[in-house]
């Protein structure tokens, strides 16, 4: 039995230690918001955050996650960065088929949480591991910038809370 801290809750999963987090989430724990795209960390559809870092769950064995805090798309909206990203995604109508967007939002939220003023180059670096077959890149870039601006507008509270 493997113990995992997911979205602030403790879960037990009866899987072998080498089982990737992706399949543990989707097939064992029933959290299907995290998507399967390639199985080789090539497309980013399965991105979750582990202690705030964007992580490809398809190649992350559950054994590596003891004592770590896992955040998935189901709960990212309760983080300040995740909320701003979701709102900007909605405002700019980023989404088409939507399948890759869980991963896009997890990567973008991690970027924004760690970098309140991402440049184009920062966006390229943070987001180029996430493939979108519908081709929503143009809007993803714009939405990240808008989310950063909105977060800035709401900044005093976050600054106080987030410190440097």
């Amino acid at each position, binding site marked *: 039995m493997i113990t995992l801290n997911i979205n602030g809750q403790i879960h037990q999963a009866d*899987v*072998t230690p*080498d*089982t*990737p987090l992706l*399949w*543990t989430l*989707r*097939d*064992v724990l*029933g*959290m*299907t*918001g*995290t*998507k*399967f*795209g*390639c*199985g*080789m960390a*090539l*497309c980013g*559809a399965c991105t979750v955050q582990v202690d705030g870092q964007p992580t490809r769950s398809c190649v992350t064995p559950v054994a590596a996650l003891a004592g770590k805090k896992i955040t*998935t*798309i*189901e709960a*990212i*909206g309760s983080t300040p960065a995740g909320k701003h990203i*979701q709102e900007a*995604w*909605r405002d700019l*109508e980023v*989404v*088409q*088929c*939507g*399948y*890759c*967007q*869980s991963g896009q*939002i997890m990567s973008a939220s991690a970027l924004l949480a760690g970098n309140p003023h991402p440049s184009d180059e920062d*966006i*390229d*670096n943070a*987001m*180029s*591991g*996430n*493939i*979108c*077959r*519908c*081709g*929503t*890149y*143009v*809007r*993803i*870039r714009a939405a990240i910038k808008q989310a950063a601006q909105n977060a800035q507008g709401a900044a005093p509270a976050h600054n106080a809370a987030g410190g440097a």
Partner: protein
Amino acid sequence: MGFERMIERSLPAGLSRRAFLKAGAAAGGGLLIGIGLPGLMGGAEAAGKDAAEFTPNAFVRIGRDGRVTLVMSQVEMGQGTYTSMPMLIAEELEVPLEQVTLEHAPPDNKLYGNPLFGVQITGGSTSVRAYWVPLRQAGASARSMLITAAAQHWKVDPAACHAERGEVIHAATGRKLKYGALADAAAKLPLPDKVALKDPKDFKLIGTPAKRLDTPDKLNGKAQFGIDARLPGMKIATVAACPVFGGKPVKFDEAKARATPGVHQVVALDNAVAVVADHMWAAKQGLAALDIQWDEGPNARLKTDDIVAQMAQAAEQPAADALAIAKNEGDVTKAAAAAPTKVDAVYQAPFLAHATMEPMNCTVQVTKDGCDIWTGTQVISVAQLVASKITGLPLEKVRVHNHLLGGGFGRRLEVDYVMQAVQIAKQVDGPVKVVWTREEDVQHDMYRPYYYDKLSAALDDKGMPVAWSHRIVGSSIIARFIPGAIKPGEPDPDAVEGAAETIYDIPNRHVDYVRHEPPGIPTAFWRGVGPTHNIYVVESFIDELANKAGKDPLDYRRALLGKSPRALAVMNLAAEKAGWGKPMPAGSGRGVSVQFAFGSYVSQVAEVAVDKDGSLRVQRVVCAVDCGYTVNPDTVRAQMEGGIIFGITAVLYGQITLENGRVQQSNFHNYQMLRMNQAPLVEVYLLPSAEAPGGIGEPGTAALAPAVLNAIHAATGKRLRKLPVDTAQLAST
């Protein structure tokens, strides 16, 4: 899917024909309006269809709670249908868009077929074109009945009442009644004989960038794609089909697979082996443990070069029964003989996989009493039919629960993965979700056909084309997809779409098609279908002619577009916005394309930069669109942006190749997709238009390749006639 041609055939009077409506009480209360679509009712509608035979293709239900539910079969795969269809109803019914819910229709061709095809298909950029008039008529009729019901209640003249935001209002007295309170009374009223549709200038919703109704759940993990289906007791299976098409398994180590923790069962099919387990990881481990040995069959030595050599030969010496003339105007031979200049070229387009982000998957439960299928498909009733055949169950015992599609692009017009899952599920106790690995998805796709095109043009002494010949060699998807649809001697209408008809004024034209089915690789529709291939060829070749004539490619096209004012207008707009003619740095260039396809006019100007080593970057794409009346302009922009990215992926990277009968590509490291750091700036401009709506899902992809190839020529002087781009050829020595 030769979609344009099929549409022309099914709609002899154009797209504005009247739908047939029927009104009555909804089960559970409220007003129900059935919408019968002309294309599905044969010729009978012209004479007036007997009411008893009336079978609606879509329903609008107005409940006692005032909620408006639209039941129809179009699926959402990112193109915005789940928003544009409700917009059409909401506009005439006078309800806020948020008050409309779209409910997916169960599989039934008679009830829910796409009026343009007669079966339940979402494809060919047809949804808005098919439902543009019928849904508005249904909304207007319902509104009229609700107004009458209110007027009767108040004992006033209906003409003194109007509808607004889900209510009927009697302005003189200020009285109001909500639709929910009127729905039962309205259901008892006769359907009005005639309702006037709104003048487009009075549209409040159509033409505005309405927020997509499917977006919120796609931001928080709640949206349910086929792969997200979960059922009590469900097992997960993954599968390996013979890596060579036409081969079969001969030996595998079942015991070793079953020894893997979590594995329950090994299921052998004719051409594949599946492992059924508690979860995907166990199934994958079990599949790897099987160590399957294959009888690779007759295609074991097949390679792409052999197929291309066969096609080149078919282009020179086509078999008589494979050749069909698509267009013959004037006298090409005579005109060419008299012309001073000739230009010849051969273009090639590769096999392509779809690589939808959601890999193929299908969940099935077969019992002796029925078969349930949970999946995402563009052809729900075909899925039902094949499952019925495999299980031996009658159609009504097969229930398809359709889901959101994690990308379609034509891949989910095929039901191979549904058939396979049903075959597996027949041997499994309880529900089983069959999920393909990405490797399986890439190596067992049904591929965009390889095309081999041979062109020849003759130019007059001013360099303008007086004769144009185009021979297209490639497989016929329509012949497989709709058996009997193509009569002997007729070309596949999809394979020649975008080539047979032209926007250009060229006096002598001959276009023919040679059907050539490659051995050992299945072919299918891909985003942009025929036009994606043909526009690439035609728009590249026109550029070649301009080069030969020593003229600016834009001016050259302008001179040929005298009879296509809408094409000329989009091209001029794209050129103006792109700054056509402004100097660019060395190694950079601009290219243009212009087209009419799927009922829409699109022009793109691409800017590329080529490095000394030949590496290439598409820096900017400017796109101008005239797609007729626009239901949701933001969706049009989004489809163009996405179609352009899809097109760049194909131009830069897209090719499936065979060696020893096996597809050599397997995952995103060797079947690459464009990524964020390579994405260009994209600008989309819409030309306002009052014409009937055109399709928007596919034209953006079709227009891209030639614009980029023409830009490469402008940057380097090199003309590439084969996709994807071979950067080695672009390296400057």
